[in-house]
């Protein structure tokens, strides 16, 4: 087959190596900025079985970096849209699409059918879930994360090596570290980091070179610098995950039992009177929504400034994408400050709504 000729003529790979690639089963969680390049190169390389998991649909703002999609797949589920595109790229491999959310209920069952897991998710809750499920099913995890112009990369749970929890033992407090939809990202950055993830997957399969295990790599797209930091394995952190296995499936229950955050849409907001708008974005974030005269209380200092809030008014909180505003409402709930709502939409949508409809 001439499809893989350029691999086969490499003495380091050869037909034997290509056969290993054809037998490999790789599951990619998240078909977004990172997932797209990972999937593209793994499908092209001829990975025998590729799993794609994503519950989300393609939106126009994804197209700046999520290179498997186009205008014809807007509003289509990402796992299904990616499968369709990749089947055209390589019709000799098996592609399984999972158009649903990864949960602690389905993770172990799905992971056990694959050899290698790739993390292309965009939030800490799912990243820790992916890590823990990889430990419990004993699968190597190829991890990538991005922030504006910087990326990080590592391989966890590989040959008894460290896990994500050995690097960062527990998730940061909700809302303290924004994701791409909130703060923006250079489109080419996930392309670079995702392609490096695909490279680590191939190295694991071929047992070639030095797999990036026991190290985390930081890449800065603006300075073009890379920094590699050694990580040691923490038996305690890994043992905690293993000890929790019996409770793994019930984790979701815990999340569901926590208090729900009252949310409100822009349209509903303006049906009310006596409102106090609060912008919880950091001061440098744009655009400002000056027409509603908000109180500026960045989430990083929110808890120390609760005295500035007018308790008599209905508190309506917003941010860039409706995520940090929920964290702010949960802080208010902690202090029993009621009558507080998180706007579902972000600042940009609020400005557009006001432009179109007035207040």
């Amino acid at each position, binding site marked *: 087959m001439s499809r893989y000729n350029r691999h086969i003529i490499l003495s380091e790979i050869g037909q034997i190596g290509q056969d290993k690639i054809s037998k490999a089963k790789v599951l990619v969680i998240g078909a977004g900025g990172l997932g797209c390049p990972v999937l593209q190169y793994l499908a092209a390389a001829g990975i025998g079985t590729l799993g794609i998991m994503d519950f989300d649909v393609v939106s126009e703002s994804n197209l700046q970096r999520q290179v498997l999609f186009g205008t014809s797949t807007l509003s289509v589920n990402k796992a299904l849209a990616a499968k369709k595109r990749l089947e055209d790229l390589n019709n000799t491999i098996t592609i399984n699409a999972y158009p649903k959310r990864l949960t602690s209920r389905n993770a172990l069952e799905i992971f056990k059918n694959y050899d290698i897991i790739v993390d292309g998710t965009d939030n800490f809750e799912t990243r820790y879930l992916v890590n823990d499920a990889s430990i419990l099913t004993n699968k190597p995890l190829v991890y990538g994360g991005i922030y504006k112009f910087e990326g990080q990369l590592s391989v966890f749970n590989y040959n008894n090596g460290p896990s994500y929890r050995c690097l*960062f033992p527990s998730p940061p407090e909700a809302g303290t570290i924004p994701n791409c939809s909130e703060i923006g990202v250079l489109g080419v950055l996930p392309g670079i980091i995702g392609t490096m993830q695909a490279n680590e997957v191939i190295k694991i399969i071929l047992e070639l070179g030095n797999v990036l295990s026991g190290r*985390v790599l930081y890449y800065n797209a603006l300075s073009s610098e890379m920094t590699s930091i*050694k990580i040691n394995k923490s038996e305690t952190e890994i043992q905690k995950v293993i000890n929790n296995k019996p409770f793994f499936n019930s984790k979701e229950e815990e999340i569901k039992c926590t208090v729900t955050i009252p949310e409100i849409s822009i349209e509903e907001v303006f049906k009310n009177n006596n409102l106090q708008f609060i912008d919880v974005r950091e001061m440098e974030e744009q655009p400002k929504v000056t027409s509603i005269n908000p109180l500026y209380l960045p989430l990083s200092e929110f808890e120390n400034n609760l005295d500035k809030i007018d308790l008599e008014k209905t508190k309506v909180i917003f941010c860039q994408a409706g995520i940090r505003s929920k964290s702010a409402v949960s802080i208010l709930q902690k202090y029993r400050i009621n009558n507080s709502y998180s706007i579902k939409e972000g600042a940009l949508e609020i400005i557009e709504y006001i432009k179109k409809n007035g207040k």
Partner: protein
Amino acid sequence: MKLAIKYFGQLAEITECSEEEFEFSGMKISDLREALFLKYSKLSNKDFQIAQNQVLVSDDTEITTNEIALLPPFAGG
């Protein structure tokens, strides 16, 4: 002791530099954390790990070299 500290991601936005020389007289990584929080109060709200000489270290590690890096987690994908 003069330390050379590198900051990544959001941390570099708080310190407004990706690298700086930092005069420090403490012993341990935990002392360094406190000294950094004094200079940059906003760092105290952030989750990050510290590496010394390109190796991740814990708070009770003694500082023996001048090469330090502050490493935050990244959520985005």
